[in-house]
């Protein structure tokens, strides 16, 4: 049995009268790629927002279990605490720091893993200097891994769309998470680029040992890389299972996939 990293029990989120997420259970284990799919407006992004502390969920239990450590119940935690605990995310609508350079975007991801304070910044003692150097080093290597090193000193806003998506992933990885949440990473990419993304995600899982939970509408990608799939509709979980099972599930086909993929 693999170790669990994230355990969500009957998570519920209401917006006024609208129940966007309704008693959803979901878990992610070590070394897994789990996908969350479902029709538009099913509540997937909202689910992400709840478990990363951007919204305070109306009900439910969320725990993260850092590998080899005790579970932490993170309901009501501020986003930065959750990131510190080891869960990082990207956004459906890209949210980079547009007027910072690409490298700085990644360096910001290091914020919660570094410690130098104001006085350190002013005096720039040996500790701070070392830390800065390490930050630059780490960030640069990360950019290399993501194939972004040639943009290092560009402003983030001037990058092509696909590169921006990859930069968001790099920034999230800079926080050294054990679980990475990706919200529609392939949106706006053409089939060729999606293929590259496919390789990248697999590489992150295999080489960095980071588990992944992703939301995606590109079924080719999802079916290719995920170990397990959860399907949501109208806030509720309607199915879960391996890609094969999901592909055949009539409920999912009717609500989401349509005939084409099946055919």
């Amino acid at each position, binding site marked *: 049995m693999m170790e669990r990293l994230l355990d969500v029990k009957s998570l519920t989120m209401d917006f006024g009268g609208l129940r966007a997420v309704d008693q959803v259970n979901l878990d992610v284990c070590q070394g897994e790629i789990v996908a969350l799919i479902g029709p538009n407006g099913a509540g997937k992004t909202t689910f992400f927002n709840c478990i990363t502390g951007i919204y305070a969920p109306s009900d439910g239990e969320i725990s993260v279990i850092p590998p080899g450590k005790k579970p932490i119940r993170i309901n009501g935690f501020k986003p930065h605490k959750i990131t510190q605990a080891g869960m990082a995310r990207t956004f*459906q*609508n890209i949210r980079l720091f547009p007027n910072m350079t690409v490298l700085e975007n990644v360096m910001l991801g290091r914020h919660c893993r570094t410690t130098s304070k104001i006085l350190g910044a002013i005096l720039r003692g040996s500790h701070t200097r070392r830390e800065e150097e390490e930050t630059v080093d780490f960030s640069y290597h990360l950019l290399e891994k993501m194939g972004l090193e040639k943009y290092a000193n560009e402003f983030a806003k001037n990058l092509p769309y696909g590169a921006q998506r990859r930069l968001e992933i790099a920034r999230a990885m800079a926080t050294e998470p054990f679980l990475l949440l990706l919200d529609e990473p392939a949106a706006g990419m053409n089939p060729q680029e999606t293929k590259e993304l496919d390789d990248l995600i697999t590489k992150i899982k295999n080489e960095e040992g980071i588990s992944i939970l992703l939301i995606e509408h590109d079924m080719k990608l999802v079916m290719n890389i995920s170990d397990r799939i959860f399907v949501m509709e109208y806030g509720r979980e309607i199915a879960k299972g391996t890609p094969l099972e999901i592909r055949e599930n009539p409920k999912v086909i009717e609500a989401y996939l349509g005939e084409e993929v099946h055919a």
Partner: protein
Amino acid sequence: MTSSFFAEKEIYNGLLLSRTIILQELINFLMDYFLELLLGGLTKGSIYALIALGYTMVYGIIELINFAHGEIYMIGAFTALIAASILNMLGLGQITILILASILAIIYSSAYGFTMEKIAYKPLRHSPRLSPLISAIGMSIFFQNYVLLAQTSDFLPFPSLLPEFEFLQPYRHIIRSPEIFILFTTVVVMVLLTVLIKFTKVGKAMRATAQDRKMAMLVGVDVNKIISMTFVIGSSTAAIGGVLIASFIGQINFYIGFIAGIKAFTAAVLGGIGSIPGAVVGSLILGCTESFATGYVLSDYEDVFAFGLLVLILIFRPAGILGKSSSEKV
């Protein structure tokens, strides 16, 4: 020395009667005080509101704290004063003067608002958010000194143009017709503006422009025209404010806009900036707070109370009383 009609007198008379009546009198008396403070506060509030409405409109569309809005109000008042003086020489009646002076004030304030937008804000459409703010501060300083130099630094008496209604005479120590007139105008202007923004096509175009200018262009909105129009409407309400307030207070100088402007801006934020009813509600609350702070606590600190209230309300309602906290979708 004519001694005033003392409240004590009533209490004294009450002593001759029974205790319960004393109590009754006391309550009446306190209520009377409360009521008068409340009415005073509402009047003051509606004065703020007339200026706050323009603030909120302009903010609503280009997210600019238009610091020069108070000056537009001041220019409206000056235009009205000049017009009224000339009309007065022609021997026109009071109502005619009021109407004509108001119209001229509206025309000129709008013209100033329009020109100001073209010169100081329009070239800054694509600039960082704070640049037009500084431009607005510059405009405010410019207009103050323009009027100071072209007219005078002194206070000038402003004729009381507002009509007095006969039937209100008996209650005149509580409320007078100018105050009713101001309250009434405020409400009417608010309703008109709300209808304009909420329900008309132009209003929808204004909101669309405010939220996404480029997309508004893409659905065919003439963004420049809409923004100019907003300035014209905002300036017109300021002009109406200028005429009413000046004739209520009875004096103007080049600096009145600045003081009133800051208060009106505070009121607009208190109510939720960008919201038309919010501007009025915020203004009324601000006016009443000041009035009660003076009446029950200490007038030295009336502004401290006003700003303190602002801080308190914003802590609990970060987008003002009627403002919608636009929860950003992530």
